[in-house]
């Protein structure tokens, strides 16, 4: 069944964000290709997934605030600013690299 289809993606956290994800910078994930409604999964979906399934730290608001990626955290999709890729609505492709970089930490 197509519903069981899996997409491999690499998710990275830097700039201090890694501390929210068990101090692990690189996470190789296999995510379902379709969401609960049968639509292709997006970066927005991935952010929720990371919050609920991957992040063990209880400080969710460090990553997501009011349903959005926290201001001051940059999102790069295959090295491109996600603003160039449709932000949260970008549909994940196999082998995508999604990088979250915090600018909020000391410089």
């Amino acid at each position, binding site marked *: 069944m197509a519903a069981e289809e899996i997409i491999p993606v690499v998710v990275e956290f*830097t*700039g*201090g964000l890694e*501390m929210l994800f068990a101090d692990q910078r690189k996470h190789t994930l296999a995510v379902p290709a379709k969401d609960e409604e049968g639509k292709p999964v997006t970066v927005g979906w991935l952010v929720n997934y990371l919050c609920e399934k991957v992040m063990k730290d209880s*400080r969710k*608001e*460090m990553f997501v605030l009011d349903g959005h990626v926290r*201001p*001051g955290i*940059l999102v*790069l999709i295959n*090295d*491109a*600013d996600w*603003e*160039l*890729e*449709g932000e949260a609505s970008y549909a994940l492709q196999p082998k995508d690299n999604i*990088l979250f*970089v*915090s*600018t*909020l*930490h*000391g*410089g």
Partner: protein
Amino acid sequence: MSPALCAMCRASRALIIRPKNHQKLCKACFIAIFEAEIHHTITSTNLFSPGDRIAIGASGGKDSTVLASVLKTLNERYNYGLDLVLLSIDEGIKGYRDDSLETVKRNAVQYGMPLKIVGYDELYGWTMDQVVETIGKKGNCTYCGVFRRQALDRGAKMLGIKHVVTGHNADDVAETILMNLLRGDLPRLARSTNIITGDEMSEVKRSKPLKYAYEKEIVLYAHHKKLDYFSTECIYSPEAFRGSARSLIKNLERVRPSAILDVVRSGEDMARLVPEEVTGISQCKSQKISLSNADGGDEGAGGCGSSNGRSSGGEMAEMEKKLQQDEEAAGREVEITSVSSHANGQRHDRIGGKSHLRSRAQGDTGRKLLRQTLGTCKRCGYMSSQEICKACVLLDGLNKNRPKMEIEIDVEDEESSTLRRRMEGIALAAG
């Protein structure tokens, strides 16, 4: 969506969208224009002269790492003729600086620059760990910030260097402008927009070449150039009322990315409208020095965070809590600020014995500034507008607290300090 092409070379795929003008650029063009703009800032402000020895205040964090990398690049590309040195401060916080100093040591090798590390212990006889042990976590960032400002200047002096550059970026400057606007502190607002503090008369002048660079672009530059930097918060989280101003800046940026530079430009425009007699800028030279440097509070009075002299807005959790509180009560920001200047006034009161200082701290800053004259601290000889400089005042308090007494001493609590003095009197009499 078909990938957008770079607006400059029209050949490569755009990876960056610039916050200040929405320009879409490829990696190579972004790196080129980022460097060109810093070069423009440096040349248009006559920041350096050939042969200058420049100390880069290096924390291992993104801003100072990018600053070091860009200055090295520009120095070689445009033959500035600068002698660049990395200068790092070790506050003596176990586990905090270990990793960041390792990063700076690697940077020194990567950029072929000599590195000087100055410790709080050698400068002040106190590590921050010892300070916290003595006064607790509350208020310790004031110490850290005041000590750090002098530490960079003293470190530079030890090296015979007269100019320290720091990694303050446009977000930092915008934040400082907003904070001073909220405080109603026009003189400081005016000075905080300057790219240079101190002048030829000062022993050590400070400047911020990244003043117009967005924090976002600094992080992207570091990412695309694969620079080796370190990110962590100070573990002694600042009480950081600045945290909420930072959040405000980031929220503004999300709504309208140009807002950060707009705040910086507005700050500069406002600064021009502030009369000279209020800012102290363009006054006689000696006075200007005392105004710009001795106070030590132009940027980041909170002073903590891993950038030298910059307030990073505190540990993330604290910041978040603070932001939520501020959303509940919009007036909180001003309230906290004035409480904090209260505290400052009281510390001075206690030690300097001048009872008018408290009202001065909140009141007519302009007149206060005019009355300041250049002097040196009687204890340490460091430039100061007071008889005893801020660092020595704080040290006085610390040294009196050693060995630690039973009662909890709050630095902001006048009563306990009176009690403390009485107890010291008793101890003296007994001895």
